[in-house]
C-alpha cells in the first residue's frame, strides 16, 4: 500500500511540470508590472532634485559671499579664477557649497569643480541635495 502510494506520488510529480516561461528581458525594463516592485534604495527613494533656478541662485549666493570673491564678476558662467579666487579659495568655496546644500562631495570630484557652471551642474544632478 505504502509503496503504491509512493509510486503514484512520484509518477504524478514526474508528470506535473510547471511551464517556466523565461521571457523576462535580461535588462530590467520598467513595464507596468515591474514599476510597482522597483526597489527604491535610499538615494533614489529620497531623491529631491532641486529646481535648477534655485540651485543657480543659491550657488551664486555662496560664491558672492566668499570674502575674496568680487561680487560684480560672479555670473552663471564664470570660472572661480575669473572671480578672483586662487586654488586654496576654490577648495574653500567648494566646502562652502557642500555646507550650503548638505552634501558630501568626494575628493576626486571636488578637485575638478573650478567654475560656477560645473558646481551648478553637480548640485543639480545630485539626488540628495537640500
Amino acid at each position, binding site marked *: 500500500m505504502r509503496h503504491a502510494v509512493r509510486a503514484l506520488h512520484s509518477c504524478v510529480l514526474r508528470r506535473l511540470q510547471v511551464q517556466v516561461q523565461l521571457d523576462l528581458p535580461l535588462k530590467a525594463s520598467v513595464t507596468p508590472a515591474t514599476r510597482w516592485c522597483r526597489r527604491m534604495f535610499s538615494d533614489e527613494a529620497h531623491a529631491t532634485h532641486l529646481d535648477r533656478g534655485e540651485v543657480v541662485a543659491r550657488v551664486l549666493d555662496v560664491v558672492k559671499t566668499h570674502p575674496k570673491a568680487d561680487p560684480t564678476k560672479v555670473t552663471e558662467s564664470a570660472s572661480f579664477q575669473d572671480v578672483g579666487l586662487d586654488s*586654496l*579659495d576654490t577648495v574653500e568655496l567648494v*566646502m562652502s557649497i557642500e*555646507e550650503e546644500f548638505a552634501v558630501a562631495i568626494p575628493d576626486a570630484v*571636488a578637485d575638478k569643480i573650478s567654475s560656477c557652471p560645473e558646481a551648478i551642474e553637480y548640485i543639480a544632478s545630485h539626488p540628495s541635495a537640500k
Partner: protein
Amino acid sequence: MAGLIKNLRVTQTGSGSRTLQEAHRRSMDFFREACRALPAIMDRYNLQEVTTLADLRSKIAAEFRKHSKVSNLKVVDMLVFKGQEELQYCVDHSKQRHHLLGQYIIGKEGLAGDVHKLGETDHGESEFLKNFYRGNN
C-alpha cells in the same frame, strides 16, 4: 572621518611627495579633511556663539596661506604633517577651548593688540592705555 571617531589617526606617514602637484594635492586633501572635522570641533568646544563655520574656514585658509610660498617638497610634507597633528589634538579634545580661542578665533593680534576684539568698549579715554595694552612687539 576625523570628526566622527575620537582617536582616529589623522596624521599620515609614508613616502614623501615626489612632485609639487602631489604636495599641493596632499595639502588640499588635508584642508578638506580639516573643514570636514569643523562641525564636530564646534560642537565639542561649544563655539556656536563665538564664531561660524565659514569664519573658521577662512581662518584655516589664512593659516595655509602663510606658507603659500614654500616650494621645498619635504617642507610641504612636514607642514602638512604638523597641521594634521594639530587637527588631531583639536579633534581629540587634547586642546581646550581657550587654546582655540586664543590661537585661531581671536588670534594673536586680539590677545595683545587691538582691545576691541576682546569685547571691551572704547569710551575714547586714553590712547596711551591702548598703546600700553598693545605692547611693543
